[in-house]
C-alpha cells in the first residue's frame, strides 16, 4: 500500500463518517460542523486527483461561505434545543422506502455508465491546474460558462429584489 492509497482510504473514511454524522446528529449546529469536515475530506480527494483549483474553490465557496450562512441562520433561529419534532412510525417507514428507491436508481444508473470500467488517474492529471482549467473554460466551454454566470447574476438580483423594503 503506497501513500496515495493510505491517504485515499483515510479521506474516504472521514468523508463517509462525517456524512453519516451530518444525518444522525441531533443538534443542527453539529450537523453543519460535520458537513464542513466532509467538505474538507472531499477537497483532500480533489488534491489527490491533482485538481488543486477545484479543491480550494470547494473550501472557499462551500466551507468558507455557504456553511457560514448556514451557521448564521441556525444560530440565530436558536435551534440548539433538539427542537426536532418526533415523527410517526409510518413517516419513518415511508422515508426509508423512498430513500432506498433513490439509492437503487443511483446504483443502477452508475452501473450502466462507463465510470466503473475506467480507473482514476491519481496525482498525474494536469487538467485540474488553474491555467489549463481556465483555458478550457474560456475556449471550449465559454458559452455554458457565461450562461451560468448570467444565471448567478439573475439569482443575485432576485435576492436583492426580494430583500428590499418597499
Amino acid at each position: 500500500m503506497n501513500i496515495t492509497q493510505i491517504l485515499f482510504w483515510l479521506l474516504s473514511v472521514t468523508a463517509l463518517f462525517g456524512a453519516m454524522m451530518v444525518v444522525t446528529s441531533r443538534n443542527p449546529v453539529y450537523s453543519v460542523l460535520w458537513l464542513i469536515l466532509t467538505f474538507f475530506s472531499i477537497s483532500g480527494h480533489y488534491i489527490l486527483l491533482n485538481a488543486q483549483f477545484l479543491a480550494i474553490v470547494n473550501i472557499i465557496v462551500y466551507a468558507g461561505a455557504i456553511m457560514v450562512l448556514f451557521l448564521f441562520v441556525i444560530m440565530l433561529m436558536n435551534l440548539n434545543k433538539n427542537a426536532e419534532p418526533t415523527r410517526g412510525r409510518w413517516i419513518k417507514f415511508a422515508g426509508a422506502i423512498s430513500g432506498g428507491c433513490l439509492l437503487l436508481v443511483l446504483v443502477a444508473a452508475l452501473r450502466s455508465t462507463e465510470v466503473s470500467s475506467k480507473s482514476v488517474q491519481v496525482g498525474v492529471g494536469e487538467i485540474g491546474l488553474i491555467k489549463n482549467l481556465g483555458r478550457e473554460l474560456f475556449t471550449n466551454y465559454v458559452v455554458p460558462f457565461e450562461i451560468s454566470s448570467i444565471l448567478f447574476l439573475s439569482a443575485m438580483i432576485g435576492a436583492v429584489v426580494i430583500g428590499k423594503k418597499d
Partner: protein
Amino acid sequence: MYLLAIDWIFILEKFLLVGFIVSLSMVVAMYATYGERKVAAWLQDRIGPNRAGPFGLLQPLADGGKLFFKEEIIPLISSKFLFILGPILAMVTALLTSAVIPWGRPLHIAGRDVPLQVADINIGILYIFGVVSIGVYGIMIGGWASNNKFSLLAAIRGASQMVSYELPMGLSLLAVLMLVGDLKMSSIVANQVGEGFFNWHIWYQPLGFLIFFICALAECNRTPFDLPEAENELNFGYHQEYSSMKLGFYLFAEYINMFISGVVMATLYFGGYDIPFVNEANWDINQNLLALIGFAVLLAKAFLFVFVFMWIRWTIPRFRYDQLMKLGWARLIPLALFNMVITAAIVLWLKK
C-alpha cells in the same frame, strides 16, 4: 532515504522549516504585545511597561504566565468541546497562512537546495484566501458555544464583518494576479525582484494596496474595525465568557494574524524578500548570506506594517457598525471593481 516512496529528508526539512516559522510567528506575536504597549505609551507620552527585565522586555513572559495560572472557567451549560475548539481554530487558522509565503531565496546546504517556502503550490494566493474564509469559524464556534446572547451577537457581528471584507480583498488581489499572470506566491515575488524598487507592485497598484490594507485591518479585527471587542459600548465580544489561556489564545491569534498579514502585504505589494537599492543578480556575495539578508528585509517590511497597524489603533476611533458595513459594501467593493477593470484594460492595452 526512501520509505513508502517518500523522501524522508525532504519531510524532515519541511518539518524543520514549519517549526521555525511557527515559533517565529509566536515569538513575533508575543513581542508585538509588548511593542503595542510601548507604541501606545510613546503616542500618549507615557513610559509603558518597564518593570519586568531591562526595558520591560520580559513583560510578555509575565503576561503569558499570568494568563496560564488564572482560573479557567467553562460555562456549565455550554458545549464543552466546541468551547475548547473555538480558540484552537482561531490559532490554527492564524498560523496556516504562513505555509505558502516565500520567506527568502533558497538556501544551499550540503548540496541540497532548501527553499524557504513550505509549499509552493499552484494556487498559492487562493490558499491564503481559503484560510482567511475558514478563520470565521473560530469566532462563530467560540461565540455560540459560550451560550451567552451577547457572545452570540458579537460572534455574528464579527463573522459578518469578516465575510463582508473578504470580497473587496479578493477583488483587489485579482488585479495583482492580472499583473503577474500566475497564482504562485513565488512567481508573484519573482515578478517584483530587480534593481531598485520600482518593480514592486505598489507602484502599479496603489489603489489596490489601499483596499487590501483596509481589508487586512478589518480581517484582523484591528481598530478602526475592532467591533468584535468593543468592551465599553458593545459588551466586550465573542470571547466574553472565556478566561485564562483560552482568552489568551484568542487575543494572541489576533497578533499572529497581524504579523502574517504584514508579511502577506509585503510579499504581494512590497517585493517580498527583494532587497531595495540592490540588484541581487549582480551582487557578489555568498548565496546563503543573500538569502538570510532577504529574509531579514522581508521581516523588516512586515514589522513596518505591524507598526502602522499599531499607529492606526492609537490614532483613529472605532467605526459604528452601520458605517463599517456601508464602507465595506458601498465604498470598497465598487472601488475594488473599478481598480480591477482599469488594471485589466491597461494590461490588455500594453499587450496589444
